């Protein structure tokens, strides 16, 4: 006699995050990306304590050293074990700079990306959800799209540098300023995408259902809309991190970025372009660092998106 009752796989109840983690573990790319990200984060956080050379220490006699691997194919190259990744034209240690630069770049990248996501998602959700605000907010997006970034920065520097400087120190103040500027000039694409998705979501029946059980707009956005627009937000996040790191370097290029004794990957890359032929490693190292970070965030984002989507997770 066949068993007609409902056969249900009796999986032990587990926390939602454990599920996500389990799924994430199965995504090879995400694991690799996440691993690398953890590695690079740890490296820039704790590296400077292990490799304690001062990145700003100029040792003029030891300038223009090549990375030690160079000795493999060019025995005459100037290399030294004390500077495993070589030194720059002023004799500053490459490794120490890479670590210190990574700290700033990663911090700026993450902070600016988070800010971008925050503003973009907020504006997108609000525009999509409250019909009356849609028009004004979208025109606001147009406005921000057409604002020239350089004058904006100059205005911000003029108005806010001094107060920030006295409250957060030269680097801290500049950090806040840069993150804020990148944030407020790059949220627009996210907002557009999120708005589009929210408009579509709003027509879905579960939103109506939520309304019928007395869910207020705030909770509606928080519980029902946001979790369902995770996927485009993830894409924006990946692209946003790369964009923020690059924008930061462009800013120092224009002379509105960090003080010059404050290395960042972008700036190292920009500075080294002149000597690209002779010292390719000086562009390659920060370049690879940026690319790998972006790539790993991309893969991690892919994996997270899959993992966060319960429909895929179940399969």
């Amino acid at each position, binding site marked *: *006699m*066949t068993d*007609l*009752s*409902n056969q*249900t796989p*009796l*999986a*032990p*109840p*587990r926390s*939602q995050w454990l599920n996500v983690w389990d799924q994430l573990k*199965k995504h090879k790319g995400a694991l690799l990306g996440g691993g690398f990200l953890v590695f690079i984060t740890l490296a820039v956080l704790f590296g400077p304590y292990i490799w304690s050379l001062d990145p700003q220490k100029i040792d003029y006699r030891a300038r223009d050293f090549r990375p030690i691997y160079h000795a493999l194919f060019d025995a005459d190259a100037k290399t030294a074990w004390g500077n495993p990744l070589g030194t720059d034209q002023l004799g500053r240690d490459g490794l120490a700079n890479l670590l210190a630069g990574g700290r700033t770049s990663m911090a700026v990248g993450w902070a600016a990306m988070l800010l971008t996501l925050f503003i973009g998602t907020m504006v997108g959700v609000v525009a999509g959800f409250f019909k009356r605000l849609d028009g004004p907010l979208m025109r606001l997006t147009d406005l921000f799209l057409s604002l020239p970034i350089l004058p904006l920065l100059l205005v911000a520097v003029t108005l806010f540098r001094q107060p920030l400087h006295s409250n957060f120190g030269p680097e801290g103040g500049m950090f806040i300023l840069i993150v804020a500027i990148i944030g407020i000039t790059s949220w627009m694409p996210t907002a557009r995408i999120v708005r589009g998705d929210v408009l579509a979501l709003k027509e*879905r*029946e*579960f939103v*109506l*259902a*939520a*309304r*019928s*059980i*007395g*869910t*207020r707009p705030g*909770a509606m956005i928080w*519980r*029902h809309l946001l*979790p*369902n627009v*995770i996927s485009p937000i993830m894409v924006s996040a990946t692209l946003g991190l790369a964009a923020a790191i690059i924008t930061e370097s462009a800013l120092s290029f224009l002379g509105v970025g960090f003080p010059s004794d404050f290395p960042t990957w972008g700036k190292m890359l920009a500075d080294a372009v002149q000597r690209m032929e002779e010292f390719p490693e000086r562009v390659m190292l920060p370049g690879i660092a940026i690319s790998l970070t972006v790539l790993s965030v991309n893969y991690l984002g892919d994996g997270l998106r899959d993992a*966060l*989507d*319960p*429909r895929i*997770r*179940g*399969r």
Partner: protein
Amino acid sequence: MLDQPIAQIKGLRVEFQTKDGPVVGVKDVSFDINPGETVCVVGESGSGKSVSSLSLMRLVEFGGGEIAAGELMFDRREGGQIDLSNAGQDLMKEIRGDEIGMIFQEPMTALNPVFTVGRQLTEGLRVHKNMNKKQAEERALELLHQVRIPEPDRRMTQYPHELSGGMRQRVVIAMAMACEPRLLIADEPTTALDVTIQAEILALMDRLKRETGTAVMFITHDMAVVAQMADRVVVMFRGNKVEEGPVEQIFENPQHDYTKALLAAVPKLGEMTGKAYPEPMKLMGVEGQKIEPIKGTEEVILSVENLTTRFDVKGGFLRRNVAQVHAVEDVSFKLNKGQTLSLVGESGCGKSTTGRAILRLVEPQSGKVLFDDCNVLELNQNQLHKVRQDMQMIFQDPFASLNPQMILSEQVAEPMRNYGLASASELQDRVANLFDRVQLPRDFMRRYPHEMSGGQRQRIAIARALALNPKLIIADEAVSALDVSVQAQVLNLMMELQADLGLSFLFISHDMAVVERVSHQVGVMYLGRIVELGPRARVFENPQHAYTQSLMKAVPIADPRQRKSERDLNFKPIPSPIHGLDYKPEPSQYLEVEPGHFVLTTDSGY
């Protein structure tokens, strides 16, 4: 030649590679389909019906499946039998559409939204029959005539979204029939449609089969449809074939337990004749079921007066209103405490809108909704928030009405959170109790909607509606999307709750048999108006309005010996509910033919 089956499925096994390892979609299935014969494949959701049919088309591969074992013998138009299970995709390309046509489960999504109907219809013809554009169009037009679409010329240039569900399904059928295939596979072609359109489509397929001699493999879980259509029936259960036989045999002498359970769960029109009050269904395998009529009270809890809801059609410069959809027009009824009032009618007649307007999920134009003596339509947002605590809604599509990203316990807990009814610790208990109440195991609490079967999902929706201890539940097609067996369980649950808690239901459905089973009162809607309203027994046994009568006729009967012939059916296209701004509809006037039984006397558009 004639006794050679067109298709033979032998020992089919299909596996899907998923992230958690292989999943078996079909374990071991064998059956034959003979020329000119209709074979119905029935079984619960997930039993492998669609997968079997997709395997025959060799389309499972595109969904990540793999035919692990078995033979799929197919008798080609020319060149004898071949085994499709190892045919190359090039060969399959020739067979698909030309010799085997397929109608898919979801008419709403089966058509490409960006191409015109004409273009999609002619595509297959041009590939297989080498027609030029003009010939193909002529043939497509002919097909549209055959499937009886109104105004076929105009349809050719329309896009799918411009057609109603029934029309779309007919286009899909026309497409499958285009090259006059030897075998037509129809995968639940009518499940999502309402009775009248369903009847229409069934009649159409029957006629086509008769005229062209095509063999049909018809997949469904609706036993009434099976009774109307099948020559032979194959019953599937969890990936296996459990029973096979001529239709009469299956209905009259089922062998397998599952088949028996299935048949027992089918509500049959007329079953309730002579009973004044609804009562739960007798289910197989459920011990100690108490079957008692539910009387309810005579105390009015909801009174709807002259409710009118119109949607604006915007256009022109500056987006002014140019016309209005008269979705609900001058509707009045009363619902008693502890009783069920059902609204029935065709798709698009305004049933859902009525339900939503009562909850003010859409803003009605005028009228009164008196709930517990307060007019819902005059409340401000805060008061409305309060009233919604006592009125809850179960939505048409259980899947769509659950947030796919939220675990179930959260969704059930949400209304209580919204009203701050329970502290965090209490909340878990109450959710658990609700799960018990709707007979869901507690360890489902951490699951997501997609991990549930349709019936289970609907129970979650019910649990959510119950969370606030409401007095009134508006159940919008709460069971239409479910398997019969699950449907029966859910209906029983609802009735049980009604008996225990004294709930009132506004039950919206197009399934007459179900409505007969659960209602105290029935309102028949047509084009926004109630054309007939009265006690269930009176309306069903003595339908007065012409529309009610034709509706009754369209209901398929789950008895293979009572087949309807196409001639009995008399379909009228539904007029458009869109009118200009200056259109002033006249007020509805009713005649009380029997005590409590009202019939619309003014024009309803029918």
